[in-house]
C-alpha cells in the first residue's frame, strides 16, 4: 500500500539573501510513518531547511508541499533554563495554538500534555522545574511539547547532541513510536552511525548531495562530498565518524 506523502520538496532553493540561497536544489519526499536523518556539516543548511519547511525564510525557487502542520523541536540550549516553568507547563505550550485566546486551558489540553509526558517517560517529572532537568530529560520534554501539537510532521534539530547514552536510546525509541504513529520525522544530526537507524538519509552541504536509504546515502564518496575537507574516519568498513571543526 502506498503511504501518503507528508513532505514533498521539489527543486527547492531557499535562503535569507536573494541570489545567494543557503540551500540549493533540494528534491525529496517523505511519506507518513518515515524517519529521515539530515546529515551535514555546521553551516551546511540543516537548520535552514527546517526554517524553509516552517515557512520562516523565503523560498527562492522550487516548491514545498506539506501534508499537515509542522512541529519543531529546537536544540535544548536555545530554550530558557531560568524560566519559572514546570515540565508540564512547557508541554502545555504545545496546545496553545489549538486554543483561541478567549478559551482557558481546559482538562482536554492538560490530559493531552500529560499523555505526551507519559509517552516520553517523564510523567513523574511533570511538576519538576524545566531548568532543573537533565539535558536528555529537557530534550524529551520538548519532544513531548511537539507531540502535544498533534502535528503529523516533526522536525528535530540535533536532539541527540550532548545527550547521555540512556537518554539517546529513549529519544530514538520515541522517534520510533512517532514513526509507528504515522508521523514524518526529520532529524538533524551529526552522528553518521545513528543515521543508519533511520529510514532515509538526506546529505546536505548547501546543495543536496544525496537522499535515499542509509545503505546508499552513507557511502564514503557521499560522505566525503558532504563534509568536504572535514576529516572522515572509516572504521571496519561500516562505521564512519566525522570530526567537526566547531567554531564554538
Amino acid at each position: 500500500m502506498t503511504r501518503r506523502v507528508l513532505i514533498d520538496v521539489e527543486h527547492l532553493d531557499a535562503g535569507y539573501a536573494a541570489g545567494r540561497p543557503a540551500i540549493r536544489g533540494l528534491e525529496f519526499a517523505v511519506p507518513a510513518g518515515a524517519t529521515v536523518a539530515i546529515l551535514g556539516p555546521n553551516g551546511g543548511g540543516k537548520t535552514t531547511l527546517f526554517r524553509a519547511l516552517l515557512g520562516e525564510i523565503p523560498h527562492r525557487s522550487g516548491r514545498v508541499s506539506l501534508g499537515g502542520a509542522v512541529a519543531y523541536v529546537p536544540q535544548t540550549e536555545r530554550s530558557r533554563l531560568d524560566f519559572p516553568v514546570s515540565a508540564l507547563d512547557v508541554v502545555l505550550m504545545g496546545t496553545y495554538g489549538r486554543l483561541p485566546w478567549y478559551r482557558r486551558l481546559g482538562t482536554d489540553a492538560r490530559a493531552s500534555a500529560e499523555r505526551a509526558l507519559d509517552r516520553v517517560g517523564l510523567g513523574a517529572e511533570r511538576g519538576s522545574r524545566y531548568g532543573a532537568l537533565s539535558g536528555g530529560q529537557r530534550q524529551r520534554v520538548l519532544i513531548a511539547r511537539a507531540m502535544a501539537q498533534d502535528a503529523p510532521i516533526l522536525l528535530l534539530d540535533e536532539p541527540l547532541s550532548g545527550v547521555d547514552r540512556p537518554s539517546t536510546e529513549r529519544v530514538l525509541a520515541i522517534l520510533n513510536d512517532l514513526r509507528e504513529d504515522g508521523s514524518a520525522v526529520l532529524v538533524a544530526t551529526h552522528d553518521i552511525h545513528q543515521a543508519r537507524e533511520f529510514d532515509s538519509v538526506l546529505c546536505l552541504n548547501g546543495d543536496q548531495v544525496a537522499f535515499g536509504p542509509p545503505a546508499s546515502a552513507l557511502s564514503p564518496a557521499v560522505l566525503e562530498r558532504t563534509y568536504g575537507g572535514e576529516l572522515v574516519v572509516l572504521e571496519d568498513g561500516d562505521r564512519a565518524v566525522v570530526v567537526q571543526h566547531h567554531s564554538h
Partner: protein
Amino acid sequence: MLDPFQLQFMQRAALEIVLLTPLAGILGAQIVLRHLAFFTHGVGAAAFPGLVVAGPLGVAPPLAAIGVGLGFAAGLERLSRSARLAYDVSTALLLVLALATGVVLASDVFGSGAEVDQLLFGSLLAIGSSELVATAVALVVVVAAAAVFRRAWVAGAFDPAGSRSLGLRIGLADWALVAAIAIAVVAAIDAVGALLVSAVLVIPAATARLIASSIVSLELTAASIALAEGLVGLWIAYQLDTPPGPTIATLGGAVFAIAALTRVAADRRPGAERARA
C-alpha cells in the same frame, strides 16, 4: 496612621497606584523574564521629549509620549539590525539622545513651559481626574492585550526558535508587548516620572522573581509588591515631606536588597540546592 489617606489628593494618589498595580504584575513579569528592563527605562526617557513638545504642538500628551515611545522601539530595532550594534548599546545611545533632546526642548530656547522636574520624577500628589482616566484606559488596553497575547508572550520568551511552530503569532505578539509597555510607561510617568518608571514596572517584578516559582505567582507577587511599595512609599513621602516618586523608588530598591540578601542566605543553607530542584 491612615489619617493622610483621608485627604483627597492622597486618595487620588492611592487610586493611581492601585490602577498601576496590575500593569506592574502583568507587564513587569514579561519585562523581567525577557530582560527588557533597560528597554523599559529607555522608553520612559524617550517619552520625555514627547511630553515636552505635546503642549506647544497642541497634541494630547499621552498620545505624543506613546508615539515617541513606539518610535524609540522601532528605532532601536532598526539601529540594532542595520548598524550591528548590541541591543544595550543602541538603547543607551537612543536613551541619552532622547533625554538630552527633552531637556533642550524644555529650556527657554523652545519655551515649552514644561515642568522638567515633574516629567522626570512624577507628581503623584498632583494627580487629577484626567490622569486617573488615562491610567484606567491604559489598564484596560494592557489587560486586553495580555488576554489575547499572554500565551504567545510566555512561549516566545521561553523558546524563541521553537515557539514559531506553535501556531501562535509571535511577531505580532512581540510588537503588542512593546506597545503595551509604551502605554504602561506613559501611564506611570504621571506617578513616578519618566526616569523612575522602573520603580513601578521593573523593581517589584525583579523582587518577585527572587521568590516566585511560576509565571502566575511572579505576576501576582509583582503586583502585590508594587501595591505595597506604592502605598507605603506614598505614606512615607507624606510623613517625611519627600517627593513620592523617588520615595517609592527608594523603598523598592531597599525591599529588593532585603529580598536578594534573604535569597542568598537561603541558597547557602545546606540542602538548599536539592530542595529547589
